[in-house]
């Protein structure tokens, strides 16, 4: 191969590597964490810039360009500096850009920040050398290795490959850890994730910062190859190209991200240069870009999930077949190797921790002039099931949300084991062992049933960023335990066949069960059930009721909002009637039926 072709090939490979690294970073942020980072290019540019000014010698020796620093650091320090700068910038931007709850608002703030930055860069002559950018950046080891031009190019390809593999290993580590499961849950349903103890804003920030660092490294690597840094190369439109790459390749998995980088950046942008040359290079480029736009539309229409969609993680395979069989048999009431004729007595469920106590004092909350909850006070008997009934509009659901921290009360106290949690954010209340289920099913749609269950288990090794870095072995033992527990639950509810199905594809009743099982996996001390029987057929209702009774026998404190009064009668030890935001009466169903006020409330609505 002639040197020119080799150079060209090497350049392509370096670009592929750089863009793959960038795509893996964006995939972590958006594909897995669901954060729409519309300022992505900013971090790549930051990394590139910092690498440039750390590699260049001191500015005074270069009279033809102005910049700061100029520390002339040896490789790989500039890249390390790039990573740190990318992380720092992401931290700064993320602290305010991630504050709005809605993802599209977050995205707009990030986009605007990136545009403002682009404007500032071209104006700040002293720091960035204006529109010309920086040039003459020495390449790593260029002086020390005597390889010739082509040889050096291949050396750089090797460096790129090394960094790419490192990034792949790093992101692979993160995405195979329990932490990634929490991120995906956050992506699917942030509110439900929060109710299970995930601190959504903090985790979003972590994934944002990590992605920022990775993007910065990719930028730095590119600059070291080209030897120049130009602001024009980091326009806001580039962010769009990266998004297109990972969407076309397939979100949520590293292979998809890589393939997207290859396809869009390698093929779409490079291949057209082989087409018959038109007279005008600019026209050609515009034609290519327009064609890319058409291709994007085509993809969004025919294959919106990408070429390599996120693969399902079949966790059931990790459970030994023997253990699976035992669980199913136990659920059916027989033990395979038992010599008894009688089925073994069902033991009370051991999902609960010690029974929690819950008291509510003068809790109030209004919406737009209407007091939804108005001076609500009651005590939950620990280790019992208390029903919360009342006509529509009585404030029952709002009461649950106030207790769980999903909404903040305007006044009053919520005492969990003596601690006043009124006004605490939902994830903090969840960590105390107060778990609630939702009125409208809130399963994590694109996670399997087993993953849904495992997300809820508190305190798993590997479910934080730091823990993820410790690797799979660190998390394996506990994961096995949890899988076994989850499987036993599935067996009890006769859903083992759906263990590896995406939760979003199950029927309404099944999704309801998944939500209940998920809540149980969280080892609650106090379980708040918001209309668990809604939309559930009578047979399934009995299964749920039985399970709730066993949980109660095992010592779990439960508060159940329900309209299905038959269930309430069978399951609840006592019942609270709410009307117009406060307690109207308490007692057993039989007593309440004879209570005139209660009757009035129901008939009056």
């Amino acid at each position: 191969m002639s040197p020119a072709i080799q150079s060209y090939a090497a350049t392509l490979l370096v670009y592929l590597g750089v863009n793959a690294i960038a795509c893996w970073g964006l995939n972590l942020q958006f594909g897995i964490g669901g954060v729409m980072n519309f300022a992505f290019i900013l971090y790549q540019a930051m990394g590139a810039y910092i690498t440039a000014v750390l590699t260049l010698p001191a500015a005074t020796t270069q009279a033809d360009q102005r910049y700061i620093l100029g520390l002339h650091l040896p490789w790989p320090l500039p890249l390390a500096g790039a990573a740190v700068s990318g992380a720092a910038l992401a931290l700064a931007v993320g602290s305010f850009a991630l504050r709005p709850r809605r993802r599209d608002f977050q995205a707009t703030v990030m986009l605007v920040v990136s545009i403002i930055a682009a404007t500032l860069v071209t104006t700040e002559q002293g720091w960035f050398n204006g529109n010309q950018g920086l040039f003459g950046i020495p390449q790593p080891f260029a002086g020390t290795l005597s390889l010739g031009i082509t040889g050096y190019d291949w050396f750089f390809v090797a460096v790129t490959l090394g960094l790419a593999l490192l990034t792949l290993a790093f992101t692979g580590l993160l995405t195979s850890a329990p932490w990634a499961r929490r991120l995906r849950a956050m992506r699917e349903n942030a509110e439900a994730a929060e109710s299970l103890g995930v601190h959504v804003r903090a985790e979003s920030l972590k994934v944002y910062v990590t992605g920022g660092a990775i993007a910065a490294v990719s930028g730095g690597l590119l600059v070291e190859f080209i030897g120049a840094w130009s602001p024009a190369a980091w326009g806001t439109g580039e962010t769009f190209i990266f998004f297109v790459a990972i969407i076309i390749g397939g979100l949520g998995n590293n292979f998809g991200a890589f393939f997207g980088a290859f396809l869009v950046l390698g093929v779409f942008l490079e291949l057209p240069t082989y087409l018959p040359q038109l007279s005008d290079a600019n026209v050609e480029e515009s034609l290519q870009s327009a064609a890319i736009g058409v291709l994007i539309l085509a993809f969004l229409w025919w294959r919106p999930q990408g070429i390599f969609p996120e693969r399902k993680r079949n966790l059931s395979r990790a459970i030994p077949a023997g253990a699976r069989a035992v669980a199913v048999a136990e659920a059916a009431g027989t033990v395979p190797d038992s010599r008894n004729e009688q089925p073994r007595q069902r033991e009370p469920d051991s999902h609960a921790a010690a029974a929690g106590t819950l008291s509510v004092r003068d809790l109030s909350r209004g919406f737009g002039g209407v007091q939804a909850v108005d001076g609500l006070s009651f005590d939950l008997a620990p280790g019992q099931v208390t029903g919360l009934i009342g006509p529509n509009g009585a404030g029952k659901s709002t009461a649950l949300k106030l207790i769980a921290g999903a909404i903040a009360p305007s006044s009053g106290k919520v005492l969990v084991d003596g601690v006043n949690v009124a006004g605490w954010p939902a994830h903090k209340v969840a960590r105390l062992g107060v778990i609630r289920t939702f009125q409208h099913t809130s399963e994590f749609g694109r996670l399997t049933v087993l993953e849904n269950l495992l997300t809820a288990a508190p305190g798993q090794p590997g479910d934080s960023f730091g823990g993820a870095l410790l690797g799979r072995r660190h998390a394996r033992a506990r994961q096995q335990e949890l899988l076994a527990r989850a499987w036993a639950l599935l067996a009890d509810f006769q859903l083992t066949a759906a263990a590896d199905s995406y939760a979003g594809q199950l029927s309404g009743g099944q999704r309801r069960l998944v939500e209940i099982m998920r809540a149980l996996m969280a080892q609650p001390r106090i379980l708040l059930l918001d209309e668990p029987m809604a939309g559930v057929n009578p047979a399934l209702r009995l299964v749920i009721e039985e399970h709730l009774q066993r949980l109660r026998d095992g010592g779990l404190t439960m508060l159940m909002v329900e309209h299905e009064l038959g269930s309430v009668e069978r399951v609840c030890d006592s019942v609270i009637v709410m009307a117009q935001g406060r307690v109207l009466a308490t007692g057993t169903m039989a007593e309440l039926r004879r209570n005139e006020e209660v009757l009035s409330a129901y008939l009056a609505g």
Partner: protein
Amino acid sequence: MSQVVLSLGFGLVTASILALGAVGFTLQFGVTNLFNLAFGENMTVAAFVAYLARVSLHWNMWLAVAAGALSGAVLSLLIGRLIYQPFLRRGTSQFAMVMVTVAVSFILKNVLQIFSGATFYSYQLPPESPIRFLGMVFDARQLTIIALAVVSLLGLHLLFRYTRIGKAMRATSDNGELARSVGIPTDRIISATWLLSGLLAGLAGVALAIDLGSFASTTGGSYLLLIVAAAVFGSVGEPYGAVLGALVIGIASEVAANYNPQLKDVVAFAILVLVLLVRPEGLRGGRVQLRGEVTV
């Protein structure tokens, strides 16, 4: 002080152009819930059509403006029916729809670039003598732009308040389900919205090109974020709010440009960021639900 008053004048011109664009942008969002990031390119196309009318066909400027506005309307309708509607009917997610509009903007911009390259075009309008008014300086053209904006916005106001179709548009924007159930042909209303918003894009595009003196294939696209800023400020989907946003951002950015020309866009964007962080539902909003739900 006189400098500030002077920049106030520029601010009014900017605000006029911005108002036309922001109202057009926000109208679409209100009725179809579509965040159309190809709006800027819609403006650019109109500017080019006006150029062809004026420079190639030698029409007078008024006819050229009309041609530009009409082309904006037609283009908007075509894209809406042929591209956006099928995606919307499918139930495409909001994020994916944004990607669709970005793809469309990409295509439009590059097709324009094929024909125009990086050249800057100008309507070659003769220079005019300045008119002084309350310490502000305008040329007749700028006053025309302001007048055009005022007349158009007034026309819109009359349309919305006093015509059946205008009320039907507001109704559809307010509560699409209910609108359908009282018999409003929401499909046709949506098409009418695309026409109207495209018309405004056309007017804004030509006005912008006149005000800047020259334009290129990227002009509309770079103006888009200012339009978004004005629309978000006044609550996306609220035409009257968009006018207010245009005034605030138009004037604020020009006054800031007085001190440093580079600050012009930065101020506008800073306002946008502030709004998104502090009051994301905008000035006249309230439909966006923040922490928790409002159900009992």
